[in-house]
């Protein structure tokens, strides 16, 4: 039967091909599974079950804490002395740092070289660091060598040998380091910022120079050690697969003869706030793209303002998605980067913003940074931005505890500032309720829009672009004020 519906073979092929091509053409929209179009939602936030910090105090008042953890067969030992650079005498900045660094450089029985050999024999890593409020010895080693590690540490603490040759060697090393940093605009601008913000405050000691280091004597080191390295002014923390009772027994065995003694403490005092915008220029040779460091004082670490300040920092400049980076780099194209930072100490904190910019746009970049800061002091941050910042902080918090080294750093802060276990266990609960108004209230308490601005770069490349500023304090790379330049006025030389 012939039918009207019969399709001629030729047409059949054409239709088949047409259908094929129609389907083929539409494949891109069908081929992709639906789930690929947008990111899946995350699972609910996991419970933050963090390891417990268990502590005991020995008869000589040395505090011993343990964070027991299964994992790699390594123990991390941290000896903290609760005297940092702020405890250096005002005429000897850098003494606290120098003393800590002398510890592995010889004991009554072993030379520096022998100590290094003993450290490496137990698979050890040894380092020291000195902060504003405390000094730290970090010592990690293979777990089977706990006795050897404690014995070596006890020799450094009980029988240090601050011999003149090693003092000279350390001075040489620090001078090399400072020389290396003599063209580092990040280091130099931070040192100048601290120097200006901490006028007449013990925290200014952190801005020590080569000249300060060179005047330190053997007597100064011995006296500082005698006055501050006391068990009642120290805390030992061990992280690894060991119990508090084992740790206490062993630490006591090696350090029970460490004699306690009253340690003179400097009561915390908040430095005077910088309430006037101050523009400073520092001539740093060979720095074609200058660094702009904008900073002012913030709340101390152990203060209720800490958490709202942390959220503010995140909104402004915590990551490349924060306001400063998006504005100065992505939108305006002025900067290579622009980030903010919150450093917290016992007496106060420092909130700073660091940007690396092209010299031609220095003035506009400083204005852009100041405008961003001004904005948060004039109107509350929108809630969605606050929520985004909180989401980052909550997500990021456990990441810093995922390595024994970063865990130790967190522990050091907890121990130094008596923050207690709550500091990390309640972190989520402290961050979650913070709202736009809470942040706004805290921001208004501090004169963030009247900061110190340091511009560090090569004068030849940079200085012409600074002429729009009304007043500039001009420093050399050593941090010495050379003169003040005022617009349409004569220079005021120093």
């Amino acid at each position, binding site marked *: 039967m012939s039918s009207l519906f019969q399709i001629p073979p030729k047409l059949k092929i054409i239709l088949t091909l047409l259908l094929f091509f129609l389907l083929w053409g539409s*494949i*891109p929209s069908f*081929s*992709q*599974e639906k*789930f*690929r*179009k*947008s*990111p*899946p*939602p*995350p*699972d*609910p*936030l*996991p*419970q*933050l*079950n*963090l*390891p417990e910090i268990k502590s005991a105090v020995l008869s000589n008042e040395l505090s011993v804490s343990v964070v027991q*953890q299964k*994992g*790699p*067969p*390594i123990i991390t030992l941290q000896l903290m002395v609760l005297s940092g650079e702020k405890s250096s005498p005002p005429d000897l900045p850098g003494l606290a740092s120098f003393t800590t660094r002398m510890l592995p450089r010889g004991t009554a029985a072993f030379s520096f*070289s022998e100590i*290094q*050999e003993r450290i*490496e*024999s*137990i*698979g*050890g*890593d040894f380092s020291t660091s000195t902060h504003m409020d405390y000094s730290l010895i970090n010592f990690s*080693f*293979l777990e089977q060598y706990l006795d050897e590690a404690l014995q070596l540490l006890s020799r450094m603490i009980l029988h240090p040998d601050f011999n003149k040759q090693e003092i000279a060697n350390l001075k040489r090393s620090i001078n090399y380091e400072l020389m290396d940093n003599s063209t580092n605009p990040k280091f130099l601008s931070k040192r100048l910022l601290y120097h200006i913000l901490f006028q007449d405050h013990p925290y200014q000691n952190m801005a020590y120079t080569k000249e300060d280091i060179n005047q330190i004597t053997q007597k100064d080191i011995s006296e500082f050690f005698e006055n501050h390295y006391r068990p009642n002014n120290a805390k030992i923390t061990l992280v690894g697969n060991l119990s508090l009772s084992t740790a206490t027994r062993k630490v006591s065995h090696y350090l029970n003869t460490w004699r306690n003694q009253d340690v003179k403490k400097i009561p915390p005092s908040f430095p005077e706030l910088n309430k006037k915008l101050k523009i400073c220029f520092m001539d740093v040779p060979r720095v074609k793209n200058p660094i702009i460091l904008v900073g002012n004082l913030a709340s101390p670490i152990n203060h209720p303002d800490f958490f709202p300040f942390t959220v503010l920092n995140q909104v402004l400049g915590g*990551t*490349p*998605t924060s306001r400063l980076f998006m504005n100065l780099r992505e939108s305006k194209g002025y900067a290579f980067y622009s980030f903010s930072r919150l450093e917290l100490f016992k007496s106060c904190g420092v909130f700073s913003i660091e940007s690396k910019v092209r010299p031609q746009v220095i003035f506009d970049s400083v204005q852009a940074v100041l405008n961003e800061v001004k904005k948060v002091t004039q109107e509350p941050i929108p809630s969605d931005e606050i929520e*985004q910042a909180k*989401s*980052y*902080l*909550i*997500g*990021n*918090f*456990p*990441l810093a*505890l*995922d*390595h*024994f080294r970063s865990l130790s750093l967190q522990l050091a802060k907890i121990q130094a500032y008596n923050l207690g276990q709550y500091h990390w266990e309640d972190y989520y609960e402290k961050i979650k309720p913070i709202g736009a108004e809470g942040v706004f209230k805290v921001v208004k308490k501090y004169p963030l829009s009247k900061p110190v601005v340091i511009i560090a770069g090569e004068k030849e490349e940079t200085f012409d672009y600074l002429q729009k500023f009304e007043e500039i304090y001009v420093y050399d790379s050593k941090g010495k004020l050379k003169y003040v330049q005022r617009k349409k006025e004569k220079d005021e030389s120093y």
Partner: protein
Amino acid sequence: MSIKNLLIPFNLVFFILAGLSSPLSSQDQGSLFPVEHHELQNGLQVILSEDYSVPVVSVVIAYQVGSIHEKPGKSGIAYLLENLMFQGSENVGPMQHINFIHRMGGNLNAVTTEDQTLFYQKVPSNQLAPVLWLEADRMKSLKITSSKVKKAKTALIQEIQQRKNKDPYLESSLYFDRLLYPHFIYHHPIFGNESSIREITPGDVKEFYSSYYTPNNAVLCIVGHINKKKSMEMVKKYFGTIPKGKEIPSMALRNFSLEEQTTRTVENPLASSPGFYLGYRLPSPYSDYYYPLKIIEYILIKGDSSRLHERLIKKEHIATHLHGEIEKKKNLAAFKIFVLTNNQITRKMSRKAIFSEINKLKSTAISEDELRKAKNLLRRNYTYQYSSTLNKAIFLSEKFLERKKLNFQVELEKYLSVTPNQITRIMNKYFGPHYFLLNVNIK
């Protein structure tokens, strides 16, 4: 034709097969920590490891491709593509991958080596699904456009310039590599060179991507606070339907002669101190000789109390900088030392001191104490490689691509069982008169 269109027919086939993949599952008993290995039907290797210390998860995806896979005239393409992997795929805009991870509170980065390219991220453990979704999207459908390639090339050329400005010894170290490794695939720099980068076309990049960024050329490693069953379900969902790539022909690897030697001198106008490079060609890193050689590396130059540090830096004060290691480049290995000195006299003294320490190790058996120290330092560094979820994930990915095995305990034992006799024997065999020396003079 775009990469996306090329993948369509395969996609249809694999759409049907989705969910049918029956992975090989194996629990490796020779590991230092629990590890589970699966293989998807498209060839993707999946390694899972639980670690409940903190609620985070690290995800690494490693592709078996690096500078060794580049052709002459196209050097730098592997590194260029690593950068382009952040410039957007079918469902993820340029730089959005980074923004997504930052918003989660996570960290991320990527690295290109001679024969591997790794992308890694560490995030809170509840964010595993979005991370897998992101990684799958750029494995399946990276968007490579002319403007993106142009921008990435400009950025890479600028980076090379910055590297040269920052490191006055970069050019001389590249020259030394050309002496030590005579064949192009081993000696050209990972970041390429300006002229070859300029020659790379969008077509080259697309071809490189479609050849190597395939599931059958990759290992996905997930370590952290995870539920293994649920994690595998996610992996299958996001990666299972990505089509298998073409089989990658095995590389024509080259060998070098262990019986050659060369001494050269170059003038370096950028350098502030005279120095030299010294290199010994070694047997393949896949051979059993590698274990005693690694211990020798620790005895001679690793750590502040190693023999060369002790003599050149601490006792004789004749060198201002000393660095050395065994360098592995796929099937080749070499022992490389770089020394900076104050002047020509101390340079000569430093060279002499190194040869004297090498000779001592050839003629006198090492003491048990010194051997134990070298092994303990090695054990510490080996342990550091799995000291966080991210370190573990990188360690597992690299090792798996390198050896296709996960029996680390066995590997570690091989290092720890090296004897003083083996060291003397190996020293005499490979540290003879055949070495490569490049003196660097200041102008």
